[in-house]
């Protein structure tokens, strides 16, 4: 039998490799392969959806047209993943206070993960900005506490000790 190939159609598919535990799998090749299989199995899992825009990681954030390298992911130290554009937009708001939307821990890019490498500098700059805002906010609270103490002392010298006791407690709260 003779087969003549007239036309060949190439078909391929791709999917982000999102290891269950990005930290431990990076170490060995064998484990990496297992991670790949897991990634395939859990393709339609809730976990493979960006927690901010709720679109699949294999699709784009709301502002992009081309998935993949055009709209990549980043992996957080807290193991929460997002489209880089989604999490950057969130961390760029003051409301975010630099926190992960999922677990409210300080959001940091996981180190030693190649997908994060090109974003580390930008995210560090944002984190510094948020930290400065937070410091300002806290020093304002300190000022408020000082004013409150001054007023309390003026108004009520008789119960000074009690008032001061209260104010010292307030300050403790601020420091924390």
């Amino acid at each position, binding site marked *: 039998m003779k087969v003549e190939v007239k036309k060949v159609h190439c078909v391929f598919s791709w999917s982000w490799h999102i290891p269950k535990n990005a930290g431990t799998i990076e170490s060995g090749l064998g484990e990496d392969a297992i991670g790949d299989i897991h990634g395939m199995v859990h393709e339609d899992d809730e976990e493979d959806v960006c927690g901010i*825009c709720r679109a699949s990681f294999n699709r784009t954030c709301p502002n992009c047209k081309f998935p993949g390298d055009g709209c990549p992911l980043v992996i957080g130290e807290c193991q929460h993943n997002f489209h880089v554009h989604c999490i950057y937009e969130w961390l760029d708001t003051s409301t975010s206070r630099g*926190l992960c939307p999922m677990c409210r821990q300080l959001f940091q890019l996981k180190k030693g993960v190649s997908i994060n490498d090109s974003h580390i500098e930008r995210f560090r700059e944002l984190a510094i900005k948020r930290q400065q805002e937070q410091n300002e906010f806290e020093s304002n609270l300190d000022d408020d506490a000082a004013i409150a103490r001054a007023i309390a002392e003026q108004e009520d010298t008789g119960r000074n000790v009690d008032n001061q006791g209260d104010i010292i407690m307030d300050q403790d709260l601020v420091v924390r």
Partner: protein
Amino acid sequence: MSSLPKRIIKETERLVSDPVPGITAEPHDDNLRYFEVTIEGPQQSPYENGVFDLELFLPDDYPMEAPKVRFLTKIYHPNIDRLGRICLDVLKTNWSPALQIRTVLLSIQALLASPNPNDPLANDVAEDWIKDESSAIDKAKQWTQLYAQPKK
């Protein structure tokens, strides 16, 4: 008007197909970012048997910014003022884009079940609440009877 983000479409579909018990939310025909909401008063709260109307609006920056929610039905509650504005952390400083319309409405329902007079928005109500809790609760029940009756 720019097209509606996919996330909002998904959330709306799920609110209709898989509604939260005791809560309804329907988008307005003219503006799909504006929702007419009803919340049933939680059982064993002063708002039991009441049905409260609210409005919810998704700002342009949603989900980076929290939804704007307001009570339309008059309610006697230390954390809700006479304009219907709600004092709730997740609507302000503790907003996160991982939250959704449904989780916000659930939080409001929970606020009805546990009023917090120590973090008041309606100062007069909160004062009443701290001074004489049982008479404040009676008044909340009366207002529920008066203003929050389900429309037939």
